């Protein structure tokens, strides 16, 4: 859905980020040093840059200085949780930061939040005969609009944003019902059942043993 540039000199971590973002539908470009990243980001268009702070060549802070003209949103990936580093990153114009080690869900969520804020091209999503329009919050199946409660829609959107990744019931409650929810995990099960029925997702929205649910598309 979005073109993302990953700049991280640790090959394993670069791969890890790439694999997860690819899984939820993003197109990733991987780079391993600061100088090349500054060059590529100025000549090519990216919707988002994930930038490590400690890089060979130019540091992440230097790279973001070079990119001031492009207005591409940047998320720092830093090994340090130290406040000065975080503040410096944000002061230099970063949109957010992720501290290593991070959870996959956190990574996906922050990427989604920053992309949404930047108003990227990600405004609708289709699979099989189902189409979801994020701007109007409408869902249609086979060309016909499907009636949905707000929570059902929110659940569907959370599953789409984190597609191909298993989400636990607790994570879904956090994402959909937010903090003011004090119900039980069964509420999630009920909503999932209704989504499956309304959109015919029995083969797509899978129950993952001991974890939760996963939308596989």
């Amino acid at each position, binding site marked *: 859905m979005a073109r993302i540039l990953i700049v991280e*000199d*640790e*090959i*394993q*971590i670069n*791969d*890890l980020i790439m*694999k*997860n973002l690819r*899984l939820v539908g993003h197109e990733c470009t991987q780079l*391993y*040093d600061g100088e090349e990243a500054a060059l590529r980001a100025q000549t090519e268009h990216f919707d988002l840059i994930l930038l490590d702070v*400690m890089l*060979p060549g130019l540091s992440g802070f230097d790279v973001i200085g070079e990119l001031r003209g492009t207005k591409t949103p940047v998320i720092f990936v830093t*090994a*340090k949780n130290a406040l000065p580093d975080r503040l410096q990153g944000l002061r230099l114009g970063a949109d957010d930061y992720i501290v*290593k*080690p*991070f*959870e*996959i869900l956190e990574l996906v969520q922050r990427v989604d939040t920053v992309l949404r804020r930047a108003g990227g091209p990600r405004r609708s999503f289709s699979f099989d005969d189902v189409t979801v329009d994020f701007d109007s919050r409408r869902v249609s199946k086979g060309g016909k609009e499907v009636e949905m409660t707000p929570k059902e829609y929110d659940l569907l959107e959370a599953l789409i944003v984190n597609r*191909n*990744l*298993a*989400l636990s019931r607790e994570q879904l409650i956090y994402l959909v019902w937010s903090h003011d929810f004090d119900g039980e995990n069964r509420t999630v099960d009920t909503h999932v059942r209704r989504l499956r029925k309304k959109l015919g997702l029995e083969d797509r929205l*899978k129950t*993952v043993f001991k*974890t939760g649910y*996963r939308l*596989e598309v």
Partner: protein
Amino acid sequence: MRRRFWQRTYLVTLLLFLVCLYAGLFSLAFYTYGRSVENTENACLAEERYLARSFERDLHDMEEAENGTSPKLLMQSYAQNYEKQRVSLAFFEGDREVFSSFGETPPLPENGTITQIKEEEDRWILISGEIGEGRYRLLYGRYAGDLDREFASLMLTYAAVAAGVSLFLAVFLLLLLKRLSLPLEKLRVTTERIAAGDRTVAAEESGKDEFAALAKSFNQMVEKVSAQMEELADDAERKQALVDNMAHEMRTPLTSIRGFAEYIEKAAVPEEERRDAALRIVSETDRLKRISEKLLDSAFLRENTLQKETVDLAALLADTAARLAPPAKERGVTLRVLPGAGSAEGDATLLSMLLYNLTENAIKACRPGGEVVLSAGENRISVSDNGKGMTKEQLAHVTEPFYRTDKSRSRAEGGAGLGLALCRQIVLSHGAELAFDSEPERGTAVTVVFPQKEAPQ
């Protein structure tokens, strides 16, 4: 506010001086007065003796001549003569007063003794004596009030002089002490500023007195303490950098391990993707293991004493070359041991570790087709390669823990960044020297030179 040292000195000195001055002056005054009273008394005694003898003679002459002159008239003429000298006389026949020039005749003192009587402001010295085998008695009285007046005026003069001297001393001493204590005060101000954290000030060292010596010692002390504090700060900074690096080095593989484990758990991916993730976890775990092993080696080195023996360096080289032959072959690097013999004093295990690390680094620095050459001499081993070499800047940092000349490449090969730091530690513990000779794109030569063996006893 507490009094300063010089102020206390001033008060005590002044007080002591005043006590001595006044005590001295007044003792002197009293002594002088005593002496002058005594002198006057002696003079009076002499005068009375003379007067009595003279009167006795005149009385005798008068009685022989029988010219009708009475003793009273005689006495009167004497009294008139002495009046100017403020001497009064009285004449008694038996107990009967015949003549008296006293205003009021005082009671007769005992024969030949000196008495002083004091009436109001007036003092008299009285002496009585017998005349004419005890028939008559003479009372001699001398006015001594002037002695007291003299004494009083003397005291007044002394007091005035003492007051003047005291005032002068008080002022002069104040100025003197203030001036003398000036260096001390300056030192105090300097101390306060240094205590407040200002390291730029120093005590004034001018002069040759104890204050100058004190200022000098003080400056030396400050310098030493500052230097020591800086050293401590540097040390703490180095340790902090090491801890930061270590945290980073451990966090990176941990991030991968955690991430790929989560990936396996959550992601809907084909079987080979999951296997790939599992393999990555294994390799990152190995990397963590290597870091912890190197750290343990380093800790072991710090905590243990060396077990020195004579090590055959040629055998050590051959052994290392054999152990590293497989990885060298895998990279297409030739490993060559030059013929040569030599030995050195050292811990065999540690020296083996040292050579292994140096050789491994050399192999990693080489491109396929490169060559690593090991050579040994007396108290010397050397490892050289024709690999990518290092710049001066890189050489300066190369033995720091977690330093890598080529970060991404070294990590990809699984280096922990601790190898050369460990080598340096081993070399230092042997009192040996580690020398690098390197040029970018030409290669690196590392030489370890051991100290001369001690002569066998």
